[in-house]
């Protein structure tokens, strides 16, 4: 073999072995195999050789060329691998236990409980209605079978406004409007009235950990041809079991509310002890939760519905109370305090 070829090969081998990175390797490639590279130059110089000499020399140069390309290729792969390994080694290990920052917003707990109730009732075919907070005496009392000077008016201390209107003391204040809104469809097409109307209520009373002058209720009504007490118990039990996500036992006791007859106080089995008795249910095993009853014939009549043809039930659920029970909020005043320390904890709870 030609001495020059041998020398070049030796030289190339040692240079490739020394190459530290891909850039250096590439300049080696250019130095030998490029247009002006040493191996290319050998090929160019072949024209000066004798013909028979040229043949063997050509074959040797080609071998060298192939060998050079192969060596460079192998070295490239090796260097790339080294670089990845270096990259892996240089990746620091993060401390995943540092505090998260999810920048979460929050819902008011009443919104959460209200949504849960609304979803349950919507799934059972109830519409969700909204109603004003300022109502008339007719809406809040007279249409609900509570005439002027009725002792039931003493039961609630109402905030009156200087124009004679009042801040609604109960969500029932919307009942007459709901009956009038959906009554015609009931009478003409037999479409049952199924509606809930959550809302904010107001009572003129001193506030403490258990009393607020501003709180939320959710009223519900259902009116159709044969709505019964049995249906009322079913809907209350189903709804409450869904809200608390466990089987809730309910019991009815007679309760007096002028807009229902018969009227009930609905108790649920204590959520803490399950009914065996504990301090939070005053050892009775039951919690008084929501007044309800069969809509009073006078109320139906006042809403344009014939009580001889239709019956219905109504209930008034204390959403504020429910939220407190559900989340273990002990001081009712926290809800309207505006304090983010208390209220920013309530992320979505569907």
């Amino acid at each position, binding site marked *: 073999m030609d001495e020059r070829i041998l020398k070049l090969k030796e030289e190339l081998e040692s240079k490739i072995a020394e190459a530290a990175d891909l850039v250096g390797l590439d300049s080696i490639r250019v130095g030998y195999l490029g247009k002006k590279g040493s191996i290319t130059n050998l090929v160019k110089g072949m024209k000066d050789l004798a013909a028979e000499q040229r043949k063997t020399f050509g074959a040797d140069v080609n071998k060298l060329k192939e060998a050079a390309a192969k060596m460079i290729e192998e070295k490239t792969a090796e260097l790339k691998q080294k670089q990845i390994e270096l990259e892996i080694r240089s990746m620091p290990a993060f401390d995943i236990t540092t505090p998260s920052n999810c920048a979460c917003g929050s819902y008011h707990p009443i919104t959460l409980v209200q949504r849960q109730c609304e979803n349950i009732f919507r799934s059972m075919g109830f519409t969700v209605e909204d109603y004003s907070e300022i109502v008339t005496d007719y809406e809040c009392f007279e249409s609900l079978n509570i005439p002027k000077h009725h002792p039931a008016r003493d039961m609630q201390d109402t905030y009156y406004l200087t124009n004679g209107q009042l801040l609604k003391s109960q969500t029932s204040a919307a009942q007459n409007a709901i009956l009038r809104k959906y009554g015609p469809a009931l009478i003409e097409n037999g479409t049952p009235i199924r509606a809930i109307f959550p809302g904010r209520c107001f009572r003129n009373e001193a506030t403490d950990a258990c009393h607020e002058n501003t709180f939320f209720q959710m009223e519900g009504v259902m009116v159709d041809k*044969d709505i*019964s007490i049995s249906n009322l118990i079913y809907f209350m039990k189903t709804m409450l079991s869904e809200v608390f996500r466990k089987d809730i036992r309910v019991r009815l006791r007679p309760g007096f509310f002028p807009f229902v007859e018969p009227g009930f106080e609905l108790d649920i089995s204590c959520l803490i002890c399950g009914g065996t008795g504990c301090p939070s249910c005053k050892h009775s095993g039951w919690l008084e939760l929501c007044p309800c009853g069969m809509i009073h014939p006078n109320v139906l009549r006042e809403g344009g519905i014939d009580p001889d043809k239709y019956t219905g039930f109504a209930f008034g659920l204390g959403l504020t109370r429910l939220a407190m029970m559900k989340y273990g909020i002990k001081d009712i005043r926290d809800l309207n305090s505006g304090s983010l320390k208390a209220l920013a904890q309530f992320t979505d709870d569907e």
Partner: protein
Amino acid sequence: MFLSMNWIEDFVDLSGLDKLDLIHRFSLSTAEVENDIFFKGKDLSGVVVAEIKSVEAHPQSKKLHLLKVDAGDGQLTDVVCGAPNVRVGMKTAFAKLGATIGDITIAPRALAGYTSYGMCCGESELGISDDNSGIMEITDDVPLGTDLKEIYDIEDIIFEVDNKSLTNRPDLWGHYGIAREFASLAGRKLKAPEMEDLTVYDSLPEVDMKIEDTLCKRYSTMKVENISRNVSPVNIRIRLFYCGMRAINFLADLTNYLMLEMGQPMHAFDARKVEKIRIKRFDKPFVFTTLDGAERNIDENTLMICNDNTPVAIAGIMGGLDSEIVEDTTTLTLESANFDAASVRKSTVRLSHRTDASMRYEKSLDPEMTVPAIARFLYLLKKYDGGVRVVSRLTDEYAVKFPPVTLCFDQAFVDRYTGISIDGDTIVKTLTSLGFDVTHSGTGFTVRVPSWRITKDVTMNADIIEEITRIYGYDNFEINTTRSPLYPVRMTQVKTDEEKIKDLLVKKFALHELHSYVWAYNDELKALGIPVEENIKLANATNPNIETLRNSIIPTQLCQLKVNTAYAPEFGIFEIGRVVNGLDENNMCIEHKKLAITLFSKASDMRDLYFRMRDILAAIAADIKHSTLTFTAAKPAHSYEHPVNLNKILLDGAELGVIGIAHPTVSKNIDKKANIVFAEIDVEKLAACSDKGIVYSEPSKYPSIEYDLSMDIPEGVLYADLKNCWEKETSGLLKSAAIVDTYDTAEIHRITVRLVFSSSERTLSSAEVQDIIDKVVKDLAEMNVTIKTSAT
């Protein structure tokens, strides 16, 4: 109201039944019973009747006496006693060695050098009255050594019913009515109370009495003389005490006893002071002294009982001091009357004086009860004071009667209301046990409502359902869903929007939802330097801080920021709530539902915070209405608004609300270093805006051409003006325009906008785009916008 099981059992035999279970069923079927049930006398044993045989003064003590007591066991027991009323021959309650009184067991006890082998007890120590003036004096003729519990009703079960749950049941304000419920629940018979036959006095003269005002529905009276008893029998006193009343004297106690038993308030006048009973109102107000010694202002609406023209009692509320039973009263005029419920209620409110009597009259008592109450009173009076003489006939004026109520319904009505089947026999049995007169033929029922239920609570068929079902027991109901047809339920637009807004604000912008009050917080606003704006007021606010209703949620939120300044360097709050904006032409409040958002930051500069708010609002419009908001400058109208950067928020030409920066004065009062931005929009107006919906545009298959315009903007020219230039010149070929760079110095405000052109039909030529750009540049130049560079 406290109730005595012994008393109830006077009228119904409950032997062999679990009393606690009955009380529980009463709570579920009639009225709520409080949790605490008292087992009276359970902790008392070994107390007997004993006689004091000798009394010696204790040599070392002024208070103590050394007694020898005969407890009927054939010996005299040494007792050291500190009571002041000890005397020889007195019979008293004696706790023998080994006796228990509450937690105490009686054992020999040394007292000042002498040992006492037992204890003489006072009534309060025995728990049968509040009399602690000395040891009990027993006047009844009983053998010494008799256990006290054998002769007196010391053992009793006392339970309390929440008065509120009796509001609509005037018949339950006495033990007899309660006993009727127990009889019905237990399936036992109700016994009639023992009464005096009043007809035997029919030949005696009448009492001079006349109702001159129909607020008195009925007045029944009788006159009795030669009363000698002064202290009530022990059992009567025990019952009164257990039921929460104090013993006063025999006659007063007996009227109270009758009230607790029959539910009928009664009043005993000293007959010397009341000879000519007139029931009327007076023309002029005057001052009247009631028997508790209080001077009360009586007005012309208050019904009075008078002796001719001299008032002697406030009807249904309280007697007068001058005519009350005193030590030497031997002749009494008894009142058993019925007054208009509303009138009594209003009078108690005016006088702010509620009594056991008025509490009952307010509930509409049964006027049929006045005469039986007198008959029962006389029976008990004669039983306990043998020498009394009745000196008048029953004098009774029945001015206003409740019309009788008869109800007709059929089985189908009951089935429809209950949703279960309760058979006819059960219905008849239940109603009969409650005193209803029932005729049952075929499937029909005809029911005559008893007088004690028609005054208030049973007047129509629906009321009958309650009677049947509550005794049947709601726990026994089979529960069923309805068979009503189902229809799709759609939420109102406002409700839909509200829920979406809440989700967007919480989940995308990490805001916090807060609630607040509907009134303006006077004190808190004052502290921030925000005067409460004139608006409708509460007529009966007990707290001046909450007198005026709010016309915006923003001031409320500024107060809430103040509470939360230490919560985090940066946060945002929102509320969807109601405000009132004055009155309409009918004098009705104009109520609006608003969304208010306030951002607080010590970390971001004002510009960033302001644009964050702007983007939140834009996101609401984009997310809910697929629309773009526009803004126009607004004039400040409220003290908390910064005059600069106050903008109206518009959607489709409708003015939704306002976005602005807190006034520096207010802002500094909240936090010296914080930037505060607020916005408020009308949720109902937003809901009324149409949703543009998603408009799909197919991506172009042809390449797009980008063109960057770098412009120096003179003062007063808005981005909206620039945008207007390229939107009007680009004939639908402009696909997007976005700011890619900004450069601001004191003199120069430069932005670079990248315009992207494409057509869905062909490949655009650069000459075509250049034509458009030339036009745009010309328009921009007219506004003195200088083009620095432009390039594709």
